[in-house]
């Protein structure tokens, strides 16, 4: 299986108060065909920014460098017109807020058939048929009626189903899901995750899943990249990341979670706070919160070191 997406040395800088701040630094990862990659991290780690840059949805003043290769083509070099034919067609995206990502003044059907007419050259009537079929496939009851309703008439879970129907309308090769269930209730989240797994399997779609929820990652992903303060600190197959985490940050995250089984013991938090964009520490950005930080950590950031097969970590503790 080949790589559908390859991100290489991605750097993203934002302008604030006439200065540029690096939100994403040297981020590289790839997604294989049919694979689900989880991009995990806390607020401000750059995971959402990374996903938006793949869709080229970041607005200036932003500086992006590096390569984002989709099937070998660097998306950052494509003219806007070609990019539009990829967006929503070959790569599509679902967002956290199903409330605000649907247009409130258009009927559900119009919003789905829009991309079918645009990308697949269907007639209005064909598009409507296809839309109803899509709504049915994402588990929406009474699709013939819902198609003519407005977003506010639907619940949050139903709206997220509609978002998935829109995203899957053109059978994309890659689905980017940015915190797709964060705004939903637990029982609804279970439905949506189940649905995402199903539609991805049926269409052989790769998923880039952006989330802060390690439970969702464990459940959905084949591989995981952990981000902290704009960099990937650890990457590997999901089982190895959870069973044998190597970066002190990954270890800290996993240790700080309260558990749903076993005895209740005192939580082991990571001390300190996530650094802000304007106040990035020197060297390894996790060093100020790291219990095992050494002198070298505060001076220079580490390179990646291979721990096991396909499991790499950016930490001085692994430098031989």
């Amino acid at each position, binding site marked *: 299986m080949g790589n559908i997406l390859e991100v290489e040395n991605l750097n993203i800088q934002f302008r604030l108060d006439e200065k540029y701040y690096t939100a994403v630094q040297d981020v590289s990862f790839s997604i294989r065909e049919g694979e689900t990659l989880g991009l995990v991290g806390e607020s401000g780690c750059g995971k959402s920014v990374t996903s938006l840059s793949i869709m080229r949805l970041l607005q200036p003043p932003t500086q992006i460098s590096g390569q984002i290769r989709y099937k070998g083509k660097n998306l950052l070099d494509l003219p806007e017109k070609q990019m539009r034919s990829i967006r929503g067609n070959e790569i599509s995206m679902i967002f956290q807020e199903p409330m605000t990502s649907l247009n409130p003044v258009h009927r559900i059907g119009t919003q789905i058939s829009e991309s079918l007419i645009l990308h697949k050259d269907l007639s209005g009537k064909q598009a409507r048929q296809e839309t109803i079929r899509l709504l049915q496939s994402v588990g929406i009851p009474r699709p013939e009626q819902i198609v003519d309703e407005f977003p506010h008439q639907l619940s949050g879970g139903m709206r997220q189903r509609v978002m998935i129907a829109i995203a899957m309308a053109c059978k994309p090769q890659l689905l980017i899901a940015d915190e797709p269930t964060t705004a939903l209730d637990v029982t609804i989240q*279970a439905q949506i995750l189940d649905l995402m797994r199903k539609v991805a399997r049926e269409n052989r779609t790769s998923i880039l899943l952006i989330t802060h929820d390690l439970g969702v990652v464990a459940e959905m992903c084949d591989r995981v990249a952990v981000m902290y303060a704009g960099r990937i600190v650890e990457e590997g197959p999901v089982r190895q990341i959870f069973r044998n985490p190597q970066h002190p940050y990954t270890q800290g*995250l996993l240790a700080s979670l*309260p558990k*749903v089984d076993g005895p209740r013991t005192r939580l082991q938090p990571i001390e300190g706070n996530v650094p802000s964009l304007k106040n990035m520490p020197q060297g390894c950005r996790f060093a100020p919160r790291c219990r095992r930080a050494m002198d070298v950590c505060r001076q220079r950031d580490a390179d990646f070191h291979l721990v096991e097969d396909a499991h790499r970590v950016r930490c001085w503790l692994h430098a031989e």
Partner: protein
Amino acid sequence: MAEALLQVEDLKKYFPIRRGVFQRTVGHVRAVDGISFTVQKGETLGVVGESGCGKSTMGRSILRLIEPTSGVVNFEGRNIVRLRKGQMQAMRRQMQLVFQDPYASLNPRFSIAQTLMEPMIIHNLYGSREERLDRVRRLLERVGLDADYARRYPHEFSGGQRQRIGIARALAVDPKLIILDEPVAALDVSVQSQVLNLLEDLQEELGLTYIFIAHDLSVVRHISDRILVLYLGRMMELVEAEELFADPLHPYTQALLSAVPVPDPDAKRERIILQGDLPSPANPPSGCPFHTRCPVAKPVCRERAPQWKEIKPKHYVACHAYA
């Protein structure tokens, strides 16, 4: 046997739905529909449920930030629902609230010192400004912040630090009961556990009683002594925390627990995926409110609401399956 600090009996809060030119009441949202429980001194009662289950409304009704429609709230044996306005304002010293959103719950125009002195001024505690400032510094240190932060403003702090300030504000009046409404839901994973540990430490040191409202089941399990499960404003199950997870009796609790994603890729679990959406509390189903989604619903569930029963020792459930 510990003594009861708070006793809630048949608490109800119906919000009227008004329509038309004359704002005629055409129905009610039954946000809280008959909740009763007791909280012992020094205990933590966890309250879980999904959106629309009424958990936040319940918390605010107990504090009378929202006037309950009916019911009794006995605090140290006194029914506070009956208190007059002035008495109630004095009573607020005893019971405090910590909010979910640390960005919205601090007044952006108040410095941290002003924020923390406000309760002392309202209740006329600690005579002089110096004494109050001194108390502010001690409070900040108590919640793990630098005492010099007193001069700063909320926008200078991160979410976790703001939540610590919110907790310090609640502590400023030496309350006996603190209702924590999703206190860690808005925080980063690595900061959540810091705040949870702080809450545990404070409880131990100051002998506080907590009502901990949350949607995150693992957090609630961690911090609670007992857990109350709500669905559409009604009580589904109430039991000691570990028992709830080990042996959930209500079908809703079982589905809720099985839906929680566990951070373990090898976890093999029987997942119950509930069909359908949460019904609207404005138009709740007849009988047991859960029957529309319940995998084991019987005809009787549609007709009558089940009784609240002690099925096992100290394990209460409202479900016809155990009738």
